[in-house]
């Protein structure tokens, strides 16, 4: 059997590469969600710090 008349099986190759890219994408998406949570909590802490400072400065 020569290469030219082998069954193409393109779908399997595409599926294998898609699995790999989907895995990386899901991982990055989860990490991005964690990062946005950190950003939100950091914003809350900044607000808290600013309020505390405003309270200290008030006469």
């Amino acid at each position, binding site marked *: 059997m020569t290469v030219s008349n082998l069954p193409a099986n393109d779908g*399997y190759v595409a599926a*294998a590469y898609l699995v790999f890219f989907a*895995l990386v994408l899901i991982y990055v998406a989860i990490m991005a969600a964690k990062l946005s949570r950190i950003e939100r*909590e950091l914003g809350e802490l900044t607000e808290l710090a600013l309020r505390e400072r405003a309270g200290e400065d008030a006469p």
Partner: protein
Amino acid sequence: MYGKGLRSLSIATAAVLTGALGLAFFYAPLDADQGFVQKIFYVHVPLAIVALCGFVAAGLMAVAHLRTRDPRWDMRSYVAIHLSIILGVGVLVTGSIWARASWGHWWVWDEPTLVSFLIIFLLYATYQPLRFSIEDPDRQARYASVFAITAGAFVPVNFIAVKLAAAYTHPRVLGNIGANLPGPVRLTFYVSLLGMTLLFVTLWKYEMTSKHASAQLRRLKRILGGDEEHQGRTAAPALAQPAAGPR
């Protein structure tokens, strides 16, 4: 701290992986035996090598943790195992797809390479439950390090056992780590391997940066809020805690 150089590393990873993809589909010749299906080799084998190396690296980091008692080494080991498990899922799925395309079966139980990788994967799948089952963070870190070292040593032993196994029915395009490969295939394989290695390092740094930022944030919360926030039982290492002294 861990985010340093992350941008350039991410760009390099994306460039090398894109190059590997281009080489795999436009430069590497079609395999005479398997034809187009052999292209799975360029994603499956580097993924498997990097996942296994990640397990071994995690074992070495665990050695550093037990020697220094520095919780950062435990965190590094934890993240390396976590990432290797994720890559391991990719190895098992792409391997199954390749097996289906080559042999007509999704899984072959008498194939030592497949089964040995599954054993390693299942072994490491117990790592997170092991950590979660121990409440005391210091004891959790020590037990997890012992596990990482023992399992990390098992990986090369297992690989040697498979190499010595007589039944070679796996679609083995790689002879002696690239020694028998034709030039274009070898080049493509090495570029893919480099790309996967860079991907592992990038994601490892990415997760380490995230964990470190979370730990610093918790610390900041305690300082500003003045309350001792109880984190509850978790499998993740407690990085914010001060390093325990030598015992």
